[in-house]
C-alpha cells in the first residue's frame, strides 16, 4: 500500500497542516517507505485476536464527578496568545446574519 501525493495533501489538511508542493513530494516518499515497512504486519495471523485496549484492567475506571479547585481564570488566560474580556479571543467563527 503506497500513499499518493494527493493523499498526503488530504491527510495534511485533515491534520490542519499546510504543506507546499516540494514538501508534499518529500513527505510522500518518507511516509511511503514507512508504510511499506508496515506491510509486514499483514504476515501476522490476527484472526480472533482482540485489539489491545489498556495495560491494566482498572485503567478505564470512572471516578465520581466531584467539584475540585481549578486554576484561577487570570492564570489560564495569561497563557493565551490572545485574550480579553475574560475570554480567549479567536477570529470570527459565525458570520453576521
Amino acid at each position, binding site marked *: 500500500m503506497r500513499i499518493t501525493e494527493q*493523499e498526503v495533501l488530504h491527510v495534511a489538511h485533515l491534520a*490542519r497542516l499546510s504543506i507546499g508542493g516540494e514538501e508534499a513530494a518529500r513527505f510522500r516518499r*518518507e511516509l511511503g517507505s514507512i508504510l511499506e515497512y*508496515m506491510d509486514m504486519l499483514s504476515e501476522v495471523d490476527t484472526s480472533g485476536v*482482540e485489539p*489491545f485496549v489498556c*495495560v491494566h484492567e482498572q485503567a478505564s475506571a470512572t471516578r465520581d464527578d466531584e467539584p475540585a479547585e481549578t486554576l484561577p481564570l487570570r492564570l489560564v488566560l495569561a497563557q493565551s496568545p490572545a485574550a480579553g474580556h475574560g475570554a*480567549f479571543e479567536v*477570529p470570527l467563527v459565525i458570520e453576521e446574519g
Partner: protein
Amino acid sequence: MLDKARRFRTEDLSPVDELERLLERCRASDLNAYITLNGDEALDAAEQALQRLDEGDDDPLVGLAIAVKDNICTKGLRTTCASRMLADYVPPYDAHVIRLLRRKNAVIIGKTNMDEFAMGSTTVTSAFGPARNPWDPMRTPGGSSGGSAAAVAAGLCDAALGSDTGGSIRQPASFCGITGLKPTYGSVSRYGLVAFASSLDQIGPMARSARDVAVLFDAIRGHDPRDSTSAEAGCPPIPLEGMDLRGITIGVCRSFFSEGLDRDVERSVRHGLAVFEDLGAKVVDMDLPHLRYSVAAYYLIAPAEASSNLARYDGVRYGLRLCDERDLMEMYLATRSAGFGDEVKRRIMLGTYALSAGYYEAYYHKASQVRTLIAKDLREAFSRCDLLAGPTVPVTAFGLGEMVDDPLSLYLLDIYTIPANLAGIPALSMPCGFDGRGLPIGLQLMAPGHREDVLLGAAMTFQDHTRYHEVRP
C-alpha cells in the same frame, strides 16, 4: 547522588554551595543539555533544603539537584517540549512528580533538552538545537530524553527525570553510559506530562546507578487520582541492598542477537549476561516470535495517538498563534505549520492516515491486534523467567549528522526498547561496557508489571560487582 546525600549530613557540604557549583558548570557547558536553567527559584529551594537538613530531615532527596525533561510542567518555569509551538509557555501548575519532588525538598535545577514533543531518538529535532553526548560532543546523546542523559553523565545534575514512550529514557541512558528506568505503565502519575502517546508514555528516573534510580523512583511513584491511568497497585518495597541472584532465571530473546546488532554491543551484552551467571543467575534462550513486529506496530499506534493529542495546539488557549484576523482555518494552518518541526508533522500525518477512513482496519486496528500478541509473548516468557535481558540499542551513539534524513532507519533502532512500552512492563538500561571508540554500551532488563523491585534489585547487584556505571566521560 546518594553519596552526596550522605555528605550533606556528615561533611561540611551545603546544598546551596553545591547548587551554585552545578549551575556554574551548566552555564560553562557546551553540551546544550538544558533548555532553561532554574536560577533564583532553585537557590531559594536549596536554602530551604539546607534548613531541612539542619532540622534533621533524613529523606535522601533533600537538597539534591534534579534535572527535569522539558515536557514535564513546572510552575513558573518555562516548559517548551523543545518546540517552537511552546517556546514561551510557562505552566501555571506543577506536574504531580514535580510536586512530590518539591515536597521532599529536592531542587529543580533546570529543564533539559529533548526531541520535539519527545518524538525522536537524537535530540536533533529540538527547536533549540541538539544536545551533545559528553563522551563525544560530535555525537548524539540519544533521545528523546537526551538532555537529561547528557546532564547526568556530565555531572550537570545529581539525577534527572525523563519520559519513555518507545525507549526515550533507556536509549539515551545507553548512549550516555548511565542507568535509566521506564517504570510500569501507570506506576508514576502523568498529571502534568505533556501527552505524546497516552497508552505508552511513562515518566521515569535517570541517574548514574541503579540505587540512585531506585531512590528517585520511590519518590515519584504512587497512585494519583488526577491521572485516570494511574495504577492503584505498585511494586513491593525495593531492596536497596540489592538481591541474591541465585535461583533467578534470566531469559534472553534469541532474535535480539540477530542481524543489525553491532559486534561490540553484542560482545559487551554477552559479557554482562556472563556476569549475571557468575552471580548465580540461570540464563536461558527464549523465542518471542511477535517481537519482530514491534517497530511496525508501534509506529502506527504512537503516531495515531500523537495525531489526536497534538490536535490541542490550535493557537487558541496557549502556545504559538500566527494570526489571520479574519479566518479561523487560516489561523490553525499557519500556527501548526510554523509551530511544529518536520518529524512532528511526519508523525501527525502518519497517525492521521492510519486512523483515516479506509485505512483504519488495515493499519491502526491491525497494529493494536499485533500489540496484544506482543504483550502475550512477554507474559508467557515471564512464566518461565524472572527477567528478560538483552541489548538496549543495536548500536552505540552515532554522529549528530548521521541518519537524520532517513526516518525509517532511525525507527528501526527502537526495536529492543519498544516491546516494554507496548506491553506496559518496566524495563531499564544500565552500562555494561564500551565499544572500540570508548563509547558506552547499555544492557536492558525487562520485568513483569510492577516488579521494579526485581528489576532494580538485580541491577544493583550487577553494579555492586562491575564498575561500568562509575566510569565518567
